[in-house]
């Protein structure tokens, strides 16, 4: 509920309240979607790592589920970031992709790394082992995210608008406020999606368990398709 309200407010502000950027014009407004998505995706990756640490400490499946869902949604957001980023790049720099941009390259590397989360989970059949190995991966990858950004940033010259400087010093107040609302909206969207996905998985498992009980413990009854998600 709150998410819907904040997101609608954010979009309204983006279109009506925030002034037009001086040199990029209307296209700059994609920044209000692109940057919050990127920040939330990266935070989501690191949160997945933290949930993985909790799983390894407590061995409760719910932490593995949280880690999985966090990473799942962050990857989806990351795809969104890459697409919106390409659109923005094409519109303002004339090219779909540029290599001499530390942000883009770092993000691509992180995305490729997390995309291997699913092959890894799929290829481990034993549930406990799957959860354990996926947690190790999530921790290593979560630690890798900041290291990667630091390393790649040092490598390249930069024309990507440095978000930190822009937000802190460069954005005029109207844009700053719009950005803050968009950021809040994206964060809330992420949390809502996490809740929905977890609820959906819980419901699926309850349903499956009930079906099995009804059918008298007949396990062959409609075996679920193999999925990478942790079972509860």
């Amino acid at each position: 509920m709150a998410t819907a309200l904040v997101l609608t407010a954010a979009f309204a502000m983006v279109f009506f309240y925030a002034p037009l950027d001086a040199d990029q014009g209307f296209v700059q407004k994609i920044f209000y979607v692109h940057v919050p998505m990127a920040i939330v995706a990266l935070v989501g990756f690191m949160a997945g790592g933290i949930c993985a640490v909790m799983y390894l400490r407590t061995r409760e499946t719910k932490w593995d589920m949280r880690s999985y869902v966090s990473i799942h949604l962050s990857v989806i957001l990351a795809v969104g970031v890459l697409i919106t980023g390409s659109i923005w790049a094409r519109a303002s720099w004339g090219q779909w992709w540029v290599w001499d941009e530390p942000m883009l390259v770092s993000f691509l590397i992180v995305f490729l790394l997390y995309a291997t989360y699913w092959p890894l989970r799929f290829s481990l059949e034993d549930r406990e082992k799957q959860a354990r190995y996926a947690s190790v991966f999530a921790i290593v990858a979560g630690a890798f995210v900041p290291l990667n950004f630091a390393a790649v940033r040092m490598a390249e010259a930069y024309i990507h608008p440095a978000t930190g400087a822009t937000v802190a010093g460069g954005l005029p107040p109207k844009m700053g406020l719009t950005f803050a609302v968009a950021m809040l909206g994206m964060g809330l969207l992420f949390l809502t999606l996490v809740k929905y996905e977890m609820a959906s998985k819980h419901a699926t498992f309850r349903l499956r368990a009930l079906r099995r009980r009804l059918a008298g413990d007949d396990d062959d009854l409609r075996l679920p398709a193999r999925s990478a998600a942790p079972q509860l």
Partner: protein
Amino acid sequence: MRSTVATLLSKELTLEWRTRESVPAMVLFSIATYVVFHFGLDRDRVEGDLASGVLVVTLLFAAILGVNRLFVAEHEQGGFDGFLLAPVDRTAMLVAKAVALFVFLCIVEVVALPAFALLLLGPPLTQALGPLVLVLLLANAGIAVIGTLVAGLAIQTRARDLIVPLLALPLLVPVVLAAARSATPLLQDGGAGALPGNWLAILGIYDLLFALIAFAVFDFLLED
């Protein structure tokens, strides 16, 4: 812990010496890769950033071969079970395997580097051999740590040979980056430039951080 590591390490090195399985393959693969680069880039000689790129990428791919084979013997012949039964710190296996992989990579480079000088490299290798060796040692350390961790993760999966490159390559990008940037001034025409200290520092810090992370999580991979 130290005696466990020493025992495991001597086992690794003895096994490799007797079977000669990984290292010769890695050497031959790196030489073949130079030939492929010659044809792929359509060049007789490379120098500067192209030379350091070709060198580092070749070593990376040869290392992936070694990483794929790292835990196979343990997995297929019950070595994990035997190790788990012993009353030793499990992280010793990580340290031993990583040091073994590091040694293998160094041996590969003893052959691959002169081969590179012979086949593709433009400027003479001797102009900056010392700093180049330092760069390669640090790069080897990074590849060894990350390779061992990824091998440990992948060995229990069904699609082991597929998972290893998928996981290792993104994690090794900063190593490749820093190593290539460090080696570029050393391999340029017209005399070697100075070794870029900041890239070397980045490489060293990355190696150290990953070694700590690997040390912390490896235990969980070996549980039964």
